[in-house]
């Protein structure tokens, strides 16, 4: 099913005021597509993931909507979301690996989780074992404790578990970031495999690793300070980025084999604005080399080519 996020605004209540963590995030993920979501630390990626599943007590849905196959998700209504959670929309949270209960065997833990979501373990077990085998894990892992599995194995267990009900949308939040390159590749390829087999409909692949996103994503959305800056098919975004922020972000990634002595690459000067009291207009303007008068007004997120949207006054 297609997922449409439009102008989503979700704020955190804090003692010092509200943190505008998501303040106009828009993206569209086609059925069966993997969308990479990238941006600097703190730009709202995890907040987006949490908003689509379960808002914690401090989060408030301020505006905008999320549609799944045309139907609006009641994201602000914790109880109404119950029907969607896990079955329709599933999340692999950031730091999921370290959240596994160390005192429970994997099988027992999965059983409890499934039962708590109204799934009979005995009925799901065959499919569970089949899928574990698909990602290269033998059924024996169910008898092991989390500490006995490597990071890559744990993350594959988490992947199988979170997609057992064939959700229409899977959100993988930094699902491979803690892994070494070999395991990272194995897990990323497992994600693609699950999509190919139809175990998940659409996928939001949240990551700070642009090169990894380039490997598996069909489309990419770049976020900046709670908003969508640019969204396009992956190859288009990587080859012809139009937003100044995307360009600077891409040029900060060392190309494999490049060395500082041959060509020194630079990060983006300055740092993202505070979301407690964000600047008006374009939120990137303080760091943008192209900023001009008009940037005092917020640039709309508009289509500049088929499937390619940019929020910048200077993007033609």
């Amino acid at each position, binding site marked *: 099913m297609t997922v449409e996020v439009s102008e989503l605004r979700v704020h955190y209540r804090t003692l010092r005021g509200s943190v505008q963590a998501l303040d106009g995030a828009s993206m569209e993920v086609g059925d069966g597509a993997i969308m990479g979501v990238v*941006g*600097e*630390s*703190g730009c709202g990626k995890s907040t987006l993931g949490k908003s689509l599943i379960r808002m914690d007590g401090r989060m408030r849905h301020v505006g905008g909507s999320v549609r799944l196959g045309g139907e609006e998700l009641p994201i602000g209504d914790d109880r109404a979301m119950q029907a969607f959670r896990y079955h329709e929309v599933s999340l692999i949270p950031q730091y999921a690996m370290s959240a596994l209960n160390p005192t429970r065997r994997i099988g027992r833990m999965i059983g409890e989780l499934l039962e708590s979501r109204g799934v009979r373990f005995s009925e799901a077990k065959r499919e569970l074992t089949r899928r574990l085998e698909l990602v290269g894990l033998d059924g024996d892992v169910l008898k092991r404790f989390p500490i006995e599995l*490597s*990071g*890559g194995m744990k993350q594959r267990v988490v992947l199988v578990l979170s997609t057992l009900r064939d959700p229409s949308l899977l959100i993988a939040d930094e699902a491979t*970031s*803690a*892994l*070494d*390159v*070999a*395991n*990272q*590749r194995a897990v*990323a*390829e497992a994600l693609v495999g699950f999509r190919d087999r139809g175990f998940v409909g659409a996928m939001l692949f949240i990551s*700070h*690793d*642009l*090169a*990894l996103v*380039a*490997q598996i994503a069909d489309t990419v959305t770049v976020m900046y300070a709670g908003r969508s800056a640019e969204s396009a098919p992956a190859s288009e975004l*990587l*080859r012809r980025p139009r937003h100044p922020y995307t360009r*600077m*972000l*891409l040029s*900060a*990634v*060392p*190309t*494999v*084999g*490049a*060395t*500082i002595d041959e060509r*020194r*690459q*630079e*990060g*983006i000067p300055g*740092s993202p604005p505070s979301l407690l009291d964000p600047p008006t207009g374009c939120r990137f303007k303080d760091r943008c080399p192209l900023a001009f008068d008009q940037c005092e007004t917020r640039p709309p997120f508009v289509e500049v080519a088929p499937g390619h949207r940019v929020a910048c006054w200077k993007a033609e």
Partner: protein
Amino acid sequence: MLTLERVSKVYRVGTFGTQPLNAVRDVSLTVPPGAVVSLIGESGSGKSTIGRMVLRLTSVTSGTIAFDGRNVAGLNGHRARKEYYRHVQGVFQDPFSCFNPIFPVDRVFELLRGEYFAATPDTEWRASMRRSIERVSLDPGQVLGRYPHQLSGGQLQRLLIARALMLDIRLLVADEIISMLDASTRIDVLNLLGDLREEGLGILFVTHDLSLGTYVSDTTVILRRGRIAETGPTGEVFASPRHPYTRGLLASVPRMHRTWAEADAELDAETGPCPVHDSAGSEHPADPVEVGAGHFVGCFSNDTCPE
């Protein structure tokens, strides 16, 4: 400056601590002043264990680690050790865990002051603290007095480096210090390491990501299950990797404009025979063999090789 000579580490694991685990095996390497040596390998290959042995956080089972020719394991007494840490410092992956959330970040500097600069007058101390914070491209006014959660991971990471720089530091052990950082902050920290190298600092740079290792490093050491699989000048190892393990790692590194499938296709090219088994009759039969100037390759079949 820093020399490791056939260093091994055996942990005792299992219920009764009776099973030996060879975390590091016969590793020899040197870190000269003004050079970055990258330790690269999969999770569990022994990278951190080497860093921890250099920092004396864990003991050496056999072999020697020497700094300026002095065996590091033999540093006895508080004074000798304190002197060592004046020159050798470590920074680790998770910057948040090094800060106490209930104190402003300045506290990590105060602790250092108590140990090394007790006699330094206040104004002089503050001035040198500000200088070292500026050296890592941070604005002291923007970071001092703040709490850890008010700063980004990259800012905290740079503060920890700044703290190390307050000492007369000559060797820095940097263990996965950029893996938690986003792309923009990563390159800032890598550039900082490059600048420090120019100033003569030796750096032992631990990472599992080959592409980040190549950007700043002079020498690359590829570890596989505690053993050196391949080592040499970074450009050389990178341009013509000989060990199948190095080649596999390289193919797994995600690249912006090359798919994994394309990388695999290149991998299929002939690797050639194991150079170690080819060169019979050396003193240590399992030792890496020199295949080019300073470029050594270890045995391909690591596990079946004679001990």
